[in-house]
């Protein structure tokens, strides 16, 4: 039995095709989320990669910020539920998910049996999200994917406000004017995101095993800063950005097998 999970985020669209709720058959990701062609393109990529069509899929579940507007699914479910399911699929002993997406951050805790026990979401604020990194990369005229490597060269991370993206933007410009090196600035920016998110995580309660999901999970500088702040190891899987879509596909499978 095939189920499809589609995660339409604020900046990317991800698809996961799953067999019997246990094996990932195909995945796809496109830049462009809610309000773009991203979801359809990601879906088309998935069909191109496999020999399957929509008719072969027993259930399609959509999640993410774009879930309410997407009409091609059999059902929708919140991204927190999906990140919990997807994270637990990859890490069976998972207890805490730190999801930093393009526009928000969420912390989800699970009990021993994997059931969601608590969650917190950030307020409408770009600080502590992928958008914060995006804005800072733009000021530094860097590709967001290069921040990670740049931060690794830092000797003394700069101090950057974790309160507000707009204020932090001014700070970065001031620090550039004062001659602070680019690696130190980038490391400071990553620590700023980690500082904001770790405060949120402590509100939910952090229980190992902890993992990160969402696009920012790929940034090891943020991950390591979070590990330092939370004093715990944070697991990473290359599929971290797909946890929402994996969870959606699993949700669809569970619905059919109730």
């Amino acid at each position, binding site marked *: 039995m095939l189920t499809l999970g589609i995660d339409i985020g604020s900046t990317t669209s991800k698809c996961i095709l799953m067999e019997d709720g246990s094996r990932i058959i195909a995945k796809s990701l496109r830049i462009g989320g809610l309000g773009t062609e991203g979801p359809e393109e990601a879906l088309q990529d998935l069909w191109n990669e496999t020999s399957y069509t929509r008719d072969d899929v027993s259930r399609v579940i959509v999640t993410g910020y774009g879930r309410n507007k997407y009409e091609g699914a059999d059902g929708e479910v919140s991204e927190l539920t999906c990140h919990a399911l997807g994270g637990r699929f990859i890490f069976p002993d998972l207890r805490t998910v730190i999801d930093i997406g393009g526009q928000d951050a969420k912390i989800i805790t699970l009990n021993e049996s994997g059931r969601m026990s608590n969650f917190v*979401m950030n307020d409408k604020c770009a600080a502590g999200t992928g958008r914060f990194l995006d804005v800072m990369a733009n000021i530094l005229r860097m590709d967001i994917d290069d921040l990670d490597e740049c931060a690794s060269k830092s000797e003394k991370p700069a101090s950057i406000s974790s309160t507000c993206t707009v204020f932090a933007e001014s700070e970065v410009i001031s620090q550039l004017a004062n001659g602070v090196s680019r690696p130190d600035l980038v490391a400071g920016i990553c620590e700023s995101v980690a500082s904001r998110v770790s405060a949120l995580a402590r509100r939910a309660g952090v229980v190992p095993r902890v993992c990160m999901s969402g696009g920012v999970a790929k940034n090891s500088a943020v991950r390591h800063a979070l590990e330092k702040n939370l004093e715990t190891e944070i697991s990473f899987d290359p599929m971290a950005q797909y946890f929402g879509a994996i969870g959606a596909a699993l949700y669809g499978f569970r619905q059919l097998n109730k």
Partner: protein
Amino acid sequence: MVQDTLKKFHEAATSPRKQMEKYLAEGKKVVLTAPVYTPEELIHSMGFVPMGAWGADMELNRSKEYFPAFLCSIVQSILEMGIKGGYKGASAIVIPSLCDTLKTLGENWKYAVEDIKFIPMTYPQNRKPDYGIAFTKAGYERVMRDLEELGGKYDPAALSESIKIYNKHNEVMRKADEMLAAHPEITAAERSDIFKSAFFMTKEEHTALVEEFLAELDKQAAGAEKIGIVVSGILTDAPQLNEIFDEFGMHIVADDVAAQSRQYRTDAPEMDDPLQALAVKFANMDNCSVLYNVKKPRVQWIVDTAKARGAKGVVVVMTKFCDPEEFDYVMIKKACEKADLPLALVEVDRQMVHFEQVRTNLETFRDMLTF
């Protein structure tokens, strides 16, 4: 028939201006009552129509001339409405001193809204000892003197009569709360209308309408069971919020909302001196974030009520920048965790247009309770 009555509640809840125009056309004088508690019985007894002034969902602009942005939007919207003429025709507004933001509302109101008299009601922090009751009574006497300047006349017999009317209203509202817990088919939006309309109708009219509604509801078979929740907060009247509760099959089996049941928990006792009775009523009130009590019985009240009504979880609807509610939240969260009662926190304010975050939050909470 139930639907006909619900329609009347909805009309009253969504058209306070029309209600005020009606009372003014009847030659009555309207006195606005700001959150959270005011001596409505006294205002009523002196010949005025008390009408709740809890602001409205709107963009705040003029109020920012007086307030910083990081201030309770309920209070800001009251001033915004006052400045923009939303309360035009009212004779006065009684603003209590129950939180720091309300204190600043009164002071700003004097300068910002000159055509509607500001009447302060200063409550004591320690309301239960005799000296606290005496302080409250002195505050009511001050309100009385201000109302006399507007043509009102104090008569102890009239106040005793008004207390009876208000106690009767409290009783029917408590009964409504109980009966609604057994009727999941009444939506969160409809429940909100029943409570909100009470602010804009005379208590005599509202009592009669609620009694009519309850009599009809009693004949109606209860609908299919939903997910029972207890809702806590200052104000939960945003239509989008209630739509979300309904969309996710949540049934409010009890509330700890300042603009709803908290208003009706305590009656004024029968005493020879009705003004003293009103002060004793305030002393007896409890389980509210703005009513000082170092033991915080409200926290356990929420847990006990949730258990007693069979709620699956508690939703705290936090009005942004509401200090008293934020202080209590930590204790509520811990108590719910200890009682193994799932809890969700959603933030709202009067300026919110998009409720997507609230939607995601409550959808996840629904999954947490059911999946």
